[in-house]
């Protein structure tokens, strides 16, 4: 009898403790709206639950920071209808959308932008049959089933093609990998915007985003560290490789900064460590999750690029940047004259036949490591990007370069930046990642 009572008492105690725990959790739960539902998505006839940030302050206030009575009415401005969805942007976004509409309307760069009309511009119409007259006339029932995109097409550079409108897939396998991640904020004199977003190809094939980035600090906050990685190929695990590369890579850089300056970092040692870490992670994968034919060197293959910036200086100072690149992710400076300056080797386009081939971790080709110690002056900006943006950018002197240089001459708002990184351009459907750092002369508004 006593043993039975003891067990019952223990069970009761456990239940009470569990209830207390759940109650605490519920109390501390913060109701934060889904960030994907802000800014870019339409909320016609509704109040915004969130204030959009201005260019110089952290971008996002959580809902509970606002007084309950605060009603933020949508700003009057150009209305962009994209596919069948209306976007009512805030003032900050409106500027960018005006440009987007212009680019759409004229099908060319920003050079020919005229004055902004007083009346809202005619919304670009998406008529699948006019885009593709042949659709539906051949043999297929599937033909003609063009749907609107999940989140509209905010910016088109040149010709959009069909895919930006037709790819509507939501999920990925494995589940639980966010389609898009984004960050924005200020560190020292530096204004940072970061976006990593799944390309149309991976959306269409229901694969997770294989790009990744990491933002970190070293040297007691005196250094700002950026890592960008682009998982390579068809391997089901390359998104894991990319994620390991940026996080472990930033950690290793931070550790070395305890002993050496940014230009003294031993990048070879870091690559070797990343290679071992990725191979070890692959070896730990449960056998049933790994295709038997997958070679360890390909399983989690990923490029990696890192930049270390002085973050301890005053606004207006020229900052030193150390860049190390392995594979085809690239680094660029946007100089004050809106000139794109490649800080890593630009892909050779002289070949008759193009190839997406790149060196990638965990395979080590020492000669492929490119290190560059350079500077970013006041009012210039640094960009690290995956080839999803770097390849269409080319050497920066074309249409894509002109449009992005214009849009990124100062730090855009977070969501505008995300929309811009996701620009539509025919056949360019790889994952898109850009981390932009603006060395602002003035930080005050």
């Amino acid at each position, binding site marked *: 009898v006593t043993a039975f009572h003891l067990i019952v008492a223990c069970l009761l105690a456990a239940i009470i403790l569990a209830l207390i725990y759940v109650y605490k959790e519920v109390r501390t739960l913060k109701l934060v709206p889904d960030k994907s539902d802000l800014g870019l998505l339409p909320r016609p006839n509704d109040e915004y639950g969130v204030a959009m940030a201005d260019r110089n302050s952290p971008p996002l206030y959580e809902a509970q920071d606002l007084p309950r009575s605060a009603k933020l009415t949508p700003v009057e401005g150009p209305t962009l209808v994209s596919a069948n969805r209306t976007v009512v942007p805030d003032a900050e976004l409106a500027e960018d959308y005006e440009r987007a509409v212009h680019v759409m309307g004229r099908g060319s760069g920003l050079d020919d932008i005229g004055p902004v009309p007083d009346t809202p511009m005619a919304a670009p119409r998406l008529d699948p049959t006019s885009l*593709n*007259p*042949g*659709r539906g*006339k*051949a*043999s*297929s029932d*599937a*033909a003609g*089933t063009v749907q609107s995109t999940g989140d509209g097409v905010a910016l088109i550079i*040149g*010709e959009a*093609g*069909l*895919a930006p409108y*037709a*790819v*509507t897939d939501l999920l990925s396998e494995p589940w639980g990998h966010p389609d898009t991640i984004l960050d924005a904020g200020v560190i020292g004199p530096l204004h940072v915007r970061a976006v990593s977003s799944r*390309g*149309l*190809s*991976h*959306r*269409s*094939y229901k*694969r997770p985003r294989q790009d990744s980035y990491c933002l970190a600090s070293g040297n007691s906050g005196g250094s700002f560290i950026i890592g960008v990685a*682009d*998982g*390579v*190929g*068809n391997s089901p695990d*390359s998104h894991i490789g990319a994620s390991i590369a940026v996080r472990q890579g930033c950690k290793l850089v931070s550790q070395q900064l305890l002993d050496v300056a940014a230009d003294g970092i031993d990048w070879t040692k870091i690559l070797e460590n990343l290679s071992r870490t990725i191979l070890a992670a692959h070896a730990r994968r449960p056998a049933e999750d790994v295709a038997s*034919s997958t070679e360890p060197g390909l399983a989690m293959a990923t490029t990696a690029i890192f930049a270390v910036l002085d973050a301890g200086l005053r606004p207006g100072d020229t900052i030193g940047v150390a860049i190390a690149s392995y594979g*085809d992710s690239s680094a660029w400076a946007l100089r004050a004259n809106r000139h794109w300056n490649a800080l890593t080797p630009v892909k050779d*386009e002289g*070949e*008759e*036949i*193009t*190839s*997406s*081939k790149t060196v*990638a971790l965990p395979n080590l080709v020492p000669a492929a490591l490119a290190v560059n110690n350079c500077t970013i002056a006041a009012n210039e900006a640094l960009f690290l990007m995956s*080839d999803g943006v770097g*390849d*269409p*950018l*080319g*050497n*920066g*002197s*074309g*249409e894509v*370069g002109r449009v992005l240089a214009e849009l990124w001459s100062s730090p855009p708002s977070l969501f505008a930046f995300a929309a811009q990184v996701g620009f539509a*351009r*025919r*056949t*360019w*459907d790889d994952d898109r990642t850009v981390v932009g750092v603006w060395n602002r002369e003035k930080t005050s508004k």
Partner: protein
Amino acid sequence: MSETRGRLLPFYIIVDVSASMAGDKLDQANQILPDLFDALVKTSALQDKVRIGLIDFSDDARVLLPLADLVELTADQFPELSARGGTSYTEPFRLLKNQITSDVAQLKQDGYQVHRPAVFFLSDGAPTDTNWQQAFTELTAYDRESKTGFGMYPNFVPLGVDGADERILAQLIHPKDGPPDRRSRMYLQNKNKASAGEAIREMAEVLIASVVQSGQNAAAGGSGMTFPAHDDLPDGIEEFDGEDWIA
């Protein structure tokens, strides 16, 4: 070039239309393009970047569909294969080399980058001509070091049914060696399990899966073309890579 308009994946389908192909075999072959159209429409990300060309051959070779954006075609623009004459391999190899040269040049002039073309070559008999080996070498030989030969050489996938000579078709697998993900394949009818027409229908499935997966691979930074996994192969065909035939 300062910037690229886009990046394209060209595929050429070459079909034997010698007299022996008449009937069910050509009926099935005629279904390849409409099926491929359906697959492209369903795979939204591919529509913008895949280009398909169709060549037939007998005593001569003809371009039935110049490299085209298939989803832009109307039904009456789909070409029809019909049987005629003998089986020359030399003619389609020479014609293909000329086509690739002019297609790539045109696309590059239009501002596109072009991935290495892939060729699916369907035959039901042995060649009736003798010079085909030289023509095939001119189409595929390339020395990366000295940059001599045909730099735009295609990845070549032979498909054989009925009286196709597997020893000869095996010589058309290109590239034959290199890392496993770069090697091409050959697909042959499994005569115990499928008729030639059924095998062609199943080869079309492999072809379509390969187009779809290669498109994904190219976007993700992979190299070469992609084939469906061995376990996913339909019953009526067998798969070989170059090394299966080295002896």
